[in-house]
């Protein structure tokens, strides 16, 4: 493309690329590969334990034929036989669905509405973005305070007896989690989609109005088809983002015990399994991370397949 003579000599280029490349190799590529292998190794107790060999059979961190849930088991619980992991998988799956349909859906509705108004669009954008810049940990505490037994929501639901932790039990725990995660990120996709709408050329609207298209027809046959690629990238971002959510569940459900395994998500469980000093902590944590990565790849592949981009 540009063959400017001043960029013929390559020596400065090396200096430009090396620091960033080294950092990425040492702190991203090397640990990433190392983590992958760790999932198939055996370890002593704790996160800094030394590798003692390879799992036998090699997929033991995920599923082991010799594992039995009866009686005391001191070793590593294979992921697929671990109720906490299955609960985490289910919760994360629900979060991903909520992210795709509620986060992106709500932000699509709101941005279509903001396209109608003449004034105040930038004010809405500013306000909607507030929850995203705030740390999810602080917001998690906010939702805890909102939903706790003395919080206003329970207070005004009169049929709930005082002191009953309604929103942390097995039936209702998901509600605060879904509301908080969806609520926090709507503004993010709102800004992206609203900008996409702004970029639609005025000529098209003119043509539509000459043809006598109604408001609904403009939305349905013009705006949404033209937004398709933007919505696709939002869906992709929302789904992979929900898969990796950590801060909010971490702050919402601080103390999860073996009695309340239904509150785990993949992220929080990964931290707990890697950090708690147990046999094979490293390989269990690594296995959960591998699951997150594989699910991320499958999800993006699936989304790309279902919502294929179109060129207009």
């Amino acid at each position: 493309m540009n063959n400017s003579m001043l960029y013929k000599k390559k020596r400065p280029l090396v200096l430009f690329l090396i620091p960033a490349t080294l950092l990425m190799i040492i702190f991203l590529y090397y640990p990433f590969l190392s983590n992958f292998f760790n999932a198939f190794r055996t370890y002593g107790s704790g996160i800094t334990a030394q590798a003692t060999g390879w799992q036998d059979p090699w997929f033991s961190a995920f599923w082991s034929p010799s594992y039995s849930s009866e009686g005391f088991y001191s070793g590593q619980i294979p992921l697929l036989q671990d109720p906490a992991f299955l609960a985490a998988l289910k919760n994360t799956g629900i979060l991903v669905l909520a992210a795709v349909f509620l986060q992106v859906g709500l932000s699509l509705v709101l941005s279509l509405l903001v396209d109608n108004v003449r004034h105040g669009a930038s004010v809405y954008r500013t306000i909607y973005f507030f929850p995203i810049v705030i740390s999810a940990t602080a917001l998690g505490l906010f939702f805890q305070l909102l939903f706790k037994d003395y919080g206003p929501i329970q207070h005004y639901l009169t049929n709930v007896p005082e002191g009953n932790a309604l929103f942390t039990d097995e039936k209702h725990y998901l509600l605060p989690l879904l509301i908080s995660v969806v609520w926090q990120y709507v503004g993010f996709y709102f800004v992206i989609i609203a900008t996409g709408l702004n970029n639609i050329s005025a000529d098209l609207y003119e043509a539509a109005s000459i043809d006598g298209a109604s408001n609904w027809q403009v939305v349905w046959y013009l705006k949404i088809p033209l937004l398709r690629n933007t919505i696709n990238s939002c869906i992709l971002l929302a789904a992979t983002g929900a898969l990796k959510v950590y801060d909010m569940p971490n702050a919402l459900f601080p103390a999860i015990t073996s009695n309340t395994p239904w509150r785990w998500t993949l992220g929080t469980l990964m931290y707990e399994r890697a950090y708690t000093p147990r046999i094979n902590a490293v390989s269990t944590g690594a296995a959960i991370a591998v699951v997150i990565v594989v699910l991320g790849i499958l999800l993006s592949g699936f989304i790309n397949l279902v919502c294929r981009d179109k060129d207009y």
Partner: protein
Amino acid sequence: MKEAHSASLPVRIVSHFVLILWSLTIIVSLYWLGINSFKNTDYIRRDSFSLPNQVTKAGENGLGNYELAFKRYTPPGVANDKKVEQGFYKVLAMYGRGLLISGIVVVGVLVLGGFCAYGMARYNFKGKQFYHYFIIASMMFPAFATIVPVFRMFNSANGVIDPFVVFLNQTFGSNLKGLNITTASSPTWVAMTTVILPQLAGNLAFSIVIMTAYIRGIPVELEEAAYMEGCSIPRIFFRIILPIAKPVFATAGIFSFLWSFNDIFTQRFFLLNPKSYTITRMMMDIATQRGVNLGLQFASIIVCIVPVLIIYLIFQKSIVRGLTAGAVKG
């Protein structure tokens, strides 16, 4: 802006109505956080929606919660209040550490990422396409999949030999022992460094991608003219590219800042000593403590979010620009 498709009045009114409704969920939340930060626990339990009307002594209503928050933020495990009052855990110091960590991450991302983006935008070299994929792929690595090996890398001295160190020793005949630095007794600057390095590496890729696209759009003639005048390549970067590409550097910087400042996952792994806590890390402890002072919790949320909101309001435009750039790139 676009007169051609301005909607009818009823449509606009309904639109405003719904948009205001969603805005209210955010504004009322902030308002609710604000008013309750001035009340004591009993008051909040009794009535969390009225304006605080009793201003009494410290530790109760009024500014008492803030006084408490700033004076003695108690991390768990430090039950002895007097110990805490010595001043180590003061909020200002935690702001300072948080800002320092994120500030260094931002500077690192802008300088190193800027160099890399400049090289990518201007030079042709063998394997450039491959290098491009190298950067894009690294954006897909979640922190979950890298953090434990990084943690072990920082703690490979106690008999745990990092395969990387083993490889170096075997290949180069060196006698490296590995580090042992992520412990509760590590000095604060070491703990901060262990947070900075992974965060820096993790934020590089996004910044490089958006900066490369921007620098590529700058006409090369100016640089050629400067080169003719005897300007060296690094000088061209600092004197020409940096000023022209300021908007994209602002975007990359503000995003790196927010990601780093709010990233509790890395901080939770590497900030083990309460003396090295940042405000976000402390927020997590407040959120996970049980049966504590409710007013203090409200006040600490406000303390935690106000500086970030101010930074957001200042750099709003850069954030919006970066978002759309990032989304277009995918």
